[in-house]
């Protein structure tokens, strides 16, 4: 069983929900990411979504755009992100790591080479924002051959027939984008999310993570009552931006946010 599936299974047995923080690798500088990952795990994160910086992050709001710019100012490449994961794996063999980003850096490396390198590094899942299942036939097969989960997005605009198709193509978990918009935009409506999740669950047994618009303990807790996983990004990245000049403070400060969300979710 994949690391992601066993993670969700264990949580379910304990009656808890997954806390899934997102940070952009290499933001604000290459050395920060590894200690940050460990600190988030210690504070109660179950799965880490590690952003692969891209020059043209079309689906992201200003907060993550700037994170990409900071990471790219140090020339953080996909191979560097994979090295961070490999280093993380030297001391942590249990926490799943999901790479999140855009297709072009993977295109350039080549799907086959990427699948191999990601597997070698200990990556568990890949979420490529601009790669819908229709275009991912070859990519999906190569990832599957390396036991890497391909995680797809569902949106408020996704019609039911597509929900079924997308869930059939993906594995690990599905990511429900709770708002129409880019990352870091409007706050979400929990009741609406809950009714969408009911529809999604008619079509899949996979765990459902919810992201976009979760910004504090209260929204994390509210979502944890209806979803299997709570994905939080922009608030953390904002904190990283605030502390860009005091990098040694970043792991602790970000872990304070995730730790507090953890407590709120477990209450």
């Amino acid at each position, binding site marked *: 069983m994949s690391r992601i599936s066993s993670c969700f299974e264990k949580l379910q047995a304990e009656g808890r929900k997954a806390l899934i923080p997102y940070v952009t690798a290499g933001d604000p500088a290459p050395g920060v990411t590894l200690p940050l990952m460990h600190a988030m795990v210690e504070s109660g994160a179950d799965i880490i979504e590690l952003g692969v910086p891209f020059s043209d992050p079309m689906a992201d*709001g200003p907060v993550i755009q700037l994170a990409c710019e900071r990471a790219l100012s140090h020339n953080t490449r996909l191979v560097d992100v994979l090295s961070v994961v490999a280093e993380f794996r030297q001391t942590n063999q249990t926490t799943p790591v999901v790479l999140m980003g855009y297709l072009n850096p993977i295109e350039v490396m080549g799907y086959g080479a990427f699948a191999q390198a990601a597997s070698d590094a200990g990556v568990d899942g890949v979420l490529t924002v601009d790669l819908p299942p229709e275009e991912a036939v070859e990519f999906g097969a190569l990832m599957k051959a390396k036991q890497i989960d391909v995680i797809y997005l569902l949106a408020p605009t996704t019609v039911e027939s597509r929900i079924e198709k997308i869930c059939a193509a993906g594995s690990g978990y599905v990511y429900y984008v709770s708002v129409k918009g880019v990352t870091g935009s409007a706050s979400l409506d929990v009741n609406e999310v809950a009714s969408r999740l009911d529809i999604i669950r008619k079509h899949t047994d996979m765990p459902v993570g919810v992201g976009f618009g979760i910004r504090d303990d209260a929204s994390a807790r509210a979502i944890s009552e209806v979803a299997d996983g709570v994905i939080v990004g922009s608030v953390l990245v904002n904190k990283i931006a605030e502390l860009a000049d005091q990098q040694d403070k970043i792991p602790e400060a970000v872990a304070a946010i995730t730790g507090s969300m953890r407590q709120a979710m477990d209450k």
Partner: protein
Amino acid sequence: MPTTAELAIAKQMPDQGGHFGDFGGRYVSETLMAALQHLEQTYETLWADPKFQEEFDRDLAHYVGRPSPLYHAERLSRELGGAQIYLKREDLNHTGAHKVNNTIGQALLAKHTGKPRIIAETGAGMHGVASATVAARLGLQCQVYMGEEDVRRQVMNVYRMKLLGAEVISVSSGTKTLKDAMNEAMRDWVTNVDNTFYIIGTAAGPHPYPKLVRDFQSIIGREARAQCLDQAGKLPDALIACVGGGSNAIGLFHPFIEDADVRMVGVEAGGNGLETGEHAAPLTAGRPGVLHGNRTYLMEDDAGQILGTHSVSAGLDYPGVGPEHSYLKDIGRAEYTAINDDEALDAFRRLTLVEGIMPALESSHAIAQAMKMAPTMGKDQILLVNLSGRGDKDMHTVAAIDGIKV
């Protein structure tokens, strides 16, 4: 050159999923999938409807002023001493460029979908002006995204858009040019997808945009083909068009795809020279990748990050290109080359002085290529050049290069 059978297939592209061979497709985040599928259905239904075609043709005739003339530039041809140069006068369209053919078409789609708001991205501002124009006519709300750098370069067009009632949103992310304006327009669309129609200004983006923009722009090639047969009694030997995202070029090329004897030459922006890396020539000097919803030739680094571009003409300053051009290049049906800033500026001055026609800096790239090719060809041969737009918008830029303040 591909075989007749291969050309027949090429003419029918894209496939159901919007692929032109290995290129094109629909690489977007899930939030936009439903909107793109809806747009595709709307477009296919309306495009097959004779009433829609009639409406489109009527607007092109009475609002845009089509057909645009095909003009034999005799004096320029004589001076160059070779092929006869014919100019397809898209500069004479209402709003001054080919861009309006597409915005008229997409605005009709917007009207049929009932969306009250349109957004657009723009580089040189011609597409922004064309969008603001159709929005004014149809009473739609209009917001245009434009890179901060282009807002500075194209002040006249920014003011024109404002007069037309549109709001110009200056984009300061990334390289502050066309690609960033497109990113920002996509972000807007994701957020406001329920009430907003996104008018993409070139034959790029996710399916069905490359196809529908091509279809709306193909009026250029259909007219030019008939006009050339009528005036010269034969088809041209070569077509020349500048390539930014590729809409004026594909509009000219597409009706000629099966005319295997007609060469097709697309001209990209060579900027300061391909060897300097400061250019906007993905087909000539880039490689395939995925950006803005489609797979196509791109300017990118070894890690897959999109590179900044440079061109004296804002409308060519884009690191990607429409996927159909990538396909036509790879199957060997069309050729692509680059013209540098200074060659384009020379062509701008020369056409103005010799023919009394001031071309847009984008179109000047195509003129410069014709000036290179004509002397190597016979006097009975024909070069048909797409004069995609007029140069008034570029006075400011050229004057600045001349050290003159206007």
